[in-house]
């Protein structure tokens, strides 16, 4: 399958990229650092290891998604490798999807490695792993999918630096959704309020995918949230990919 061929190539590109390993190194370092932090706290030491661990996995996952995602299409256009590629019998949609799935495969493996390190550190510290941890990781992966698709979209028409800034802003605003909602309530009706409402509706609420608190305090997760967040994530990602396709379809490669 052609998408798989492009995906595999993208995966190879990512896995041979030194930046990825640099990030992985920092992720591992911060996971280990959490053990040191635990020494400073009074009371439950496992909590801080879990908090720092999950935060690291989440943060570095996002950084990987953004840093690699923003180069996905841009590099091909900039280096003109896209010329020979698209002169073959492959259409632009297959190309985009291939790039997307290639990076998602890489992220899957990276998440796996980080999770493994986390589990080892936690077990060494006689903590416990619940199934909720894996749910949380799964939703981090879903969130990464969304962010990757956004990075891909920007990669189709913008340079890596700008794309990274936009993607990062998207991520940050996504987590501020609650704050924006409160802001809207306090605003006087008018154009600004309307615009803010538009922004609020358009941008996703990324907190939907954040189950870190539940894992750390071992709180129950209602199944409704599962399904809702899951479909929300999938549909939104799909929506962004469609947008990318529209942008990319009739683009001239001068």
């Amino acid at each position: 399958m052609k998408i798989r061929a492009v995906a595999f190539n993208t995966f190879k590109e990512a896995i041979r990229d030194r930046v990825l390993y640099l990030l992985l190194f920092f992720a591992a370092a911060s996971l280990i650092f959490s053990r040191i932090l635990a020494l400073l706290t009074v009371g439950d030491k496992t909590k801080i290891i879990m908090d720092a661990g999950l935060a690291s996995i989440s943060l570095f996952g996002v950084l990987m998604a953004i840093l690699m995602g923003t180069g996905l299409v841009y590099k091909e256009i900039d280096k003109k490798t896209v010329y020979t590629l698209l002169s073959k019998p492959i259409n632009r949609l297959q190309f985009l999807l291939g790039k997307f799935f290639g990076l998602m495969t890489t992220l899957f493996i990276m998440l796996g490695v980080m999770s493994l390190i986390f589990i080892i550190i936690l077990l060494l510290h006689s903590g416990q792993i619940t199934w909720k941890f894996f749910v949380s990781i799964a939703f981090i992966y879903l969130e990464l999918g969304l962010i990757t698709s956004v990075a891909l979209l920007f990669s189709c028409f913008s340079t890596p630096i700008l794309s990274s800034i936009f993607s990062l802003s998207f991520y940050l605003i996504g987590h501020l959704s609650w704050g924006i909602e409160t802001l809207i309530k306090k605003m006087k009706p008018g154009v600004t309020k309307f615009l803010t409402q538009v922004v609020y509706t358009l941008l996703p609420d990324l907190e939907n995918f954040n189950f870190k608190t539940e894992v750390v305090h071992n709180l129950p997760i209602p199944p409704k949230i599962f399904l809702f967040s899951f479909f929300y994530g999938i549909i939104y990602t799909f929506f962004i990919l469609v947008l990318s396709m529209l942008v990319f379809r009739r683009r001239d490669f001068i």
Partner: protein
Amino acid sequence: MGLKLITDQIPREKVPGASIIYIPSGKYLKYASFGYSTLLADLVYIWSIQYFSNTSVPERFQYLTHVYSIISELDPQYLDPYQVGALIAIYDAREFDTAMEILSQGLKKNPEQWIFPWQAGHYAQMILKDYELAKKYYKKAMEIPGAPPITKRLYSNAIYELGDYETAWKNWLEIYKNTDDERVKKIASNHLYRTKAAMDIQKIKHALKKYKDKFGQFPEKLDSLVSQGFLDGIPQDLDGQDYVYDRETGEITTAVIPWKR
């Protein structure tokens, strides 16, 4: 390089505690943490421990409530900080109200945690010797499922200390009946003994007073109280022993110490 050494040696005026002035309220901090609020709570907590143990900052306890409310906003279910905050408030800052504030915040966010009202009752009893308050908190703790049995005992003891002997007796009787544990039974029975003694002694002393008012002095024997009609009968302690009467002072005491029965 040389310049750096010189700069290092210039003594810098460090205003200890200056960094804390600009910390915003917890609510806003939560928004600024982008989904990492539990981690931020941990970090603030660790920082706070170091900060509040730094004796060179005399007014550091000004911000005790503020800092711990921040931690609470960021991660309401993080239990350690509430307890440690209250601890610092009681032992270092000597501010009972602050401690109570922190503990009630903990209870509000975590209604299933009996430890918070329990701790509050404990501090009320131990530090303030305020049994009214202690009773209130122990009651709260008792009502939360999972509270240990000793809570009820502490509660009943507080009632006793407040002088409400009838209720105390009722409670201790309940405790005595509802346990199979020999040790607990012994404790309960000792408390029952003490409570009965208190009630009896109160009754006797009341009669003694009336006698003294009438006759100007205490009677030779307690029997006189009965013959004069001030008492229906001489009560005996729980074990059936007589109470000890000191004619000189008019004091009634138990023949034995309750805990040494």
